[in-house]
């Protein structure tokens, strides 16, 4: 807005409409409220049902018609799930945490490095490479899984590093950057003015130092978004572990829960729900700890695409 008259007319318009808006009742807001209320109940009900079943005895869980409030409340179901030898919850959690944490560290670090290259260094072929990177986001994992499986098998056969039968195939690729994270971080790095790094590092400052001492500290919110989404992705992944892991000792929570279900499916619903709540819980806690990061992170993904 360089034209002062334009700004003026806009302010008066806004003032006029707010005055009008105050007088006018808002039927659409009430409509939205009632609609949202009903829909929210619908969205919450599955959680209530899950929690309720997880606190019932098996008999009560199979009762017809079912009661929403469990009676008696059986908290022991959770202890049972944690102690079940065949489910081995502590081991599953440990494996899942190993994969998730290594993926988070790897993706955040390697994606930030690549994003710096895309955002802060001008060189021939940069936009072509950037285009290729964006295109890789559209390649579905199922397309790659068979060759990836044989690549990991080849590495295991020809080098001393075992791949299949370990958790490595699940986190090693994370250390080479993920297109989604690189894109997100690049968008953020672009908003950091170049003058800032130039002023802070007059002459003879290496890219590496600019990256660590200026870009990284200023980008904590964006890095948190990447870390969060990577964690969720690794925590939730099912197809990856299903393809690469055969040994029960390496099962992740997803695989373990699925195996438990297919053995006991249709019988122990109360335990199954308790186990599901346990898998879900860390994610929910994480969400409430970092709600703003979540919402803003998602907003950047779609908005700037």
């Amino acid at each position, binding site marked *: 807005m360089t034209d002062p008259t334009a700004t003026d007319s806009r302010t008066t318009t806004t003032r006029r409409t707010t005055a009008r808006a105050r007088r006018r009742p808002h039927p659409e807001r009430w409509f939205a409220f009632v609609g949202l209320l009903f829909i929210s109940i619908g969205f919450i009900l599955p959680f209530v049902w899950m929690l309720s079943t997880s606190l019932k005895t098996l008999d009560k869980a199979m009762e017809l018609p079912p009661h929403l409030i469990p009676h008696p409340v059986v908290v022991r179901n959770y202890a049972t799930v944690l102690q079940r030898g065949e489910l081995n919850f502590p081991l599953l959690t440990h494996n899942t945490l190993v994969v998730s944490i290594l993926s988070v560290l790897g993706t955040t670090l390697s994606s930030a490095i690549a994003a710096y290259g895309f955002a802060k260094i001008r060189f021939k072929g940069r936009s072509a490479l950037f285009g290729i990177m964006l295109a890789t986001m559209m390649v579905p994992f199922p397309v790659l899984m068979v060759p990836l499986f044989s690549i990991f098998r080849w590495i295991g056969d020809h080098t001393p590093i075992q791949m299949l039968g370990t958790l490595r195939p699940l986190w090693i690729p994370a250390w080479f950057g993920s297109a989604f994270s690189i894109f997100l971080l690049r968008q953020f790095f672009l908003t950091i003015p170049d003058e800032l790094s130039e002023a802070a590092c007059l002459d003879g400052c290496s890219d590496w130092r600019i990256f660590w001492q200026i870009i990284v500290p200023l980008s904590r919110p964006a890095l948190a978004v990447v870390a969060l989404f990577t964690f969720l992705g690794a925590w939730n992944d099912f*197809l990856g572990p299903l393809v690469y892991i055969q040994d029960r000792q390496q099962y992740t929570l997803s695989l373990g829960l699925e195996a438990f279900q297919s053995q006991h499916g249709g019988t122990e619903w109360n335990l199954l729900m308790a186990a599901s709540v346990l898998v879900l819980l860390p994610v929910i806690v994480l969400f409430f700890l970092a709600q703003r990061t979540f919402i803003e992170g998602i907003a950047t993904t779609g908005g700037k695409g």
Partner: protein
Amino acid sequence: MTRKEARQLVRGLTFLSPWIGGFLAFTLVPIVLAFYYSLCDYSLLQSPVLIGLSNYRALMGDPIFWKSLINTLIYAAIALPAGMLVSLGLAILLNQRTLGQPLFRTILFIPSLVPTVASAMLWLWLFNTKLGLINTLLATAPMQALLGALNTVLHALHLPRIETPIGWLTDPAWALPSLAIMSLWGVGYTVVIYLAGLQDVPRSLIEAAEIDGAGAWQRLRHVTLPMLSPVIFFNLIMAIIGTLQAFAIPYIMTGGGPARATYFYTMYLYDNAFRYLKMGYACSMAWIQFLLVVLLSALAFWSSKRWVHYQGQ
């Protein structure tokens, strides 16, 4: 290339090297390898043997391949538009300044965080024909009355009646729609993207339209939606890619049944590769899937010129 340009190139490539390495090892080489394997008889136990286009020819005559492809496309045809409409609708509702708006936003978002396996377990239980919550609610008097009215309408239209209890996951006719219904529970992520887009629509534009006498619907149709079209386009592409590779939910919940009604493309690919050890055959499916994603995305890009409006263009 001048010396300065060369130095810049080295700087850039240094920082991109981890990604370039990963791209080659975990994306480009696998895509090329998948194509090579697709031309081979490859059972994992022996080295691949070139057999030309036989795998592709066999696929064309494979009824299960077609079944799984058609299932996936039908599912996409239901879940994709339904998901787009519901998420956009919810975002528009959430964009109104109502009481408890932040709470509603949180409630609608949280289901999209539920880990796939947990969500599969939960919905197996909700959809349970005899004991599930959904059929229990449908058996209550008000819902029965509603269903009765719906059936009268269906009867008048010469459509089949809805018989309760519904075998959500056990009735071949219901299984695919059930999975699509379930997918709506997870729209929260998309809703948040839309919501951010809606908040970027300049208020001045909407107010200007209001002053010119545009009603709520006209403002939505002629101001909000065009301004939102880049976001809609982004979500459309993501949804196409996502639905075409649906795997975990049907694999866990139905195993592809009943009567292969929910046997999805990726499941057949997985089974060929890791159950029947027909890796070459699986790779020819992978390449067809890849081409399908490229084709549909290209179609969306092509059509986007007609309906996507970028600000400042």
